[in-house]
């Protein structure tokens, strides 16, 4: 008789091993996998796990950045540093290119581009004939994500059909798709925000600097602190203030909010998150505030 309740392995060990298991399983069953790398903390952890899964070999698949064109410079620099250090092959699926080529309507120089990511993502998948895309999504992020399988089957249009998901039993991950269809694979499904931070601390996973407290000009819009810069300018009497802030998530610079925080170390961030009473996306994502089912609607159209 043996059990996984052995005192020598903890909760993080099991999450880590399960994620590595999923990554290896998808790579073994699919022809052309890719890892979606935004430079955010979840994709940083995912990349760290993928590298572990195949060490000492090099990562047997490329990473793809779905680039809205509204980037924090710190995040782009971080992306390029990771790619160089780990010897990765980087593909960029560019929203700007999709706009320039007329594949999506131009929302204007300051318009929000998160919605347009879907088109760029699907075009990138099609161009490279990827049949599986790893993403860092977690079920605790959103009520629609909470319903999604670890391997999320997507039909020819890339959309998620929440009413007819494949059964996913035990640890038997089934990644078989026909030509033109694809999978999204979420090895961090069962991780919480706190698990991710505890793992980053344990493993010293490098992160973009904007996750840590720093002073910068911000303005308050829709009850969120937005970073004043290339993509955010004050409008209609909005006041620019300087505050000590950090980012709890990293997305499109035009719709990702900062939180007021003095947490400048991993210990301080973990202490802060442990007692917060606002969810990660609730605190920082304008794109999820449009409607009750914003995430579900985006996924139905092919989003991550």
């Amino acid at each position: 008789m043996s059990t996984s309740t052995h005192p020598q392995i903890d909760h993080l060990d099991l999450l880590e091993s399960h994620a590595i298991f999923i990554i290896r399983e998808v790579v073994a069953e699919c022809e052309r996998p890719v890892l979606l790398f935004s430079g955010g903390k979840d994709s940083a952890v995912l990349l760290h796990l993928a590298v572990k899964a195949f060490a000492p070999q090099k990562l047997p698949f490329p990473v793809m950045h779905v680039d809205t064109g509204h980037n924090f410079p710190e995040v782009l620099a971080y992306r390029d540093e990771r790619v160089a250090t780990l010897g990765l092959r980087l593909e960029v699926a560019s929203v700007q290119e999709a706009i320039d080529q007329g594949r999506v309507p131009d929302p204007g120089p300051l318009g929000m581009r998160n919605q347009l990511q879907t088109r760029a993502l699907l075009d990138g998948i099609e161009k490279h004939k990827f049949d599986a895309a790893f993403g860092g999504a977690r079920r605790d992020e959103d009520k629609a994500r909470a319903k999604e399988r670890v391997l999320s089957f997507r039909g020819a249009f890339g959309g998620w059909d929440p009413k007819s998901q494949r059964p996913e039993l035990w640890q038997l991950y089934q990644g078989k798709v026909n030509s033109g269809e694809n999978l999204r694979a979420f090895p961090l499904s069962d991780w919480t925000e706190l698990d991710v931070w505890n793992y980053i601390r344990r493993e010293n996973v490098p992160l973009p600097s904007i996750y840590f407290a720093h002073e910068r000009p911000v303005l308050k819009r829709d009850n969120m602190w937005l970073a004043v810069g290339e993509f955010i300018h004050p409008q209609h009497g909005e006041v620019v203030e300087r505050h000590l802030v950090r980012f709890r998530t990293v997305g499109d610079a035009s719709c990702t909010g900062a939180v007021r925080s003095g947490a400048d170390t991993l210990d301080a961030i973990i202490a802060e998150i442990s007692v917060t009473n606002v969810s990660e996306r609730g605190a920082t994502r304008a794109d999820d505030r449009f409607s009750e089912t914003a995430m579900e609607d985006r996924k139905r159209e092919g989003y991550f």
Partner: protein
Amino acid sequence: MTEPTSDLLRFATVGSVDDGKSTLIGRLLVDTRQLFDDQLEAVATASAKRGVGDLDLSFVTDGLRAERDQGITIDVAYRYAATPTRKFVIADCPGHVQYTRNMATGASTADVALVVLDATKGLKEQTRRHLCIAALLGVRNVIVAANKMDVAKWDEAVYFAVVDQVNEVSARLGFTSSVVIPVSALAGDNVVDPGFMANWYQGPTVLQALEAAPAGSWASSSSGARLPIQWVLRQHGGGRTYAGMVNGGEFTVGQEVTLMPQGVKTVLKAINGPRGGLEVALPGLSVDFDLTDETDAGRSDMLATAPLPTSTNEFEATICWFSDKPLTDGARLRLKHTTRSTPVRVTGIAGTLDVGTLEVGPASEIALNDIGLVHLATAEPIVVDNYRDNRVTGSFILIDEVTNATVAAGMIGHANFL
């Protein structure tokens, strides 16, 4: 510091539609303060929009538009909660018969089933079906919430009628423990806070029962150690190691291991874990093994210690069938077992389970949501344990070769009650 895993309990809600599973989970999460302010506000807004009161607790987990509009759960929601003593992974499963496959998905990784039933209506057929599936999947401990006791005016007789029904089914299905708790999920009695309406009840609340339930039973096993090989890693200097996730028992450096189905014996030279070299590889760890002898091992082979698994092409299995098109004798499908996929043919249908009487009767086909006993023959040999001994090497899925849909959950051998 993270908690040891004995403090992590995975449980799934089980039971018929409209008996209050999602409301109970919503109540549990709200009363243990697991919800962020913005999430609670969003639930209140969605409730008001649909005119279903100030706070429809089922909306905490019923997150899809269709679920909220129709007032039912369609697919499993996974939620993560922590109390001062324990972490929980909650799979809130649908009750509707049409979504039985999704319930099986949620229950397949559960240590404990939280059965929710409407006390005024007793054990419905759908509840019995879910209990059968939970028992087949290896769940041994159930916590039963006899819900809607407020509607039953907290009548002691209503509660004890449920206790009798549960005890009868529980004995039949071989559950080792089944506590029945009188509950009002709507009012919050006996969920987290004790209910003062039932002075005749001295037992635990739902939360107390969940905190006391044995954790980690999912991975418990009476087989030897197993490593289904997922991937061969090329090491610097030309060597190879064999990667996979350990189950069943532990491997130790220097130990003799058998490569299956080849039956070749070798010695475990070194173990690499996610954090470096290890002397012992425990179940649940992803590792890669360096072996003393050169072998031709590859994906879908298995490394094992005694008692060894069986290598076979023909076997008896219990399946839950998920396809609209019934399974008939002679059908050809694909089977995925551990890391091996192989063509499979149905060589006989031994019967199906009547969830009302719990008797297996003769059948010529297995229909949607039926539980059936079958004989299968695979093109390649698979390396198996009985499901009762090992949930990883004893389980498989069947896949439609044209659509690639997963059409059945399968277990090697049959449960004690069949």
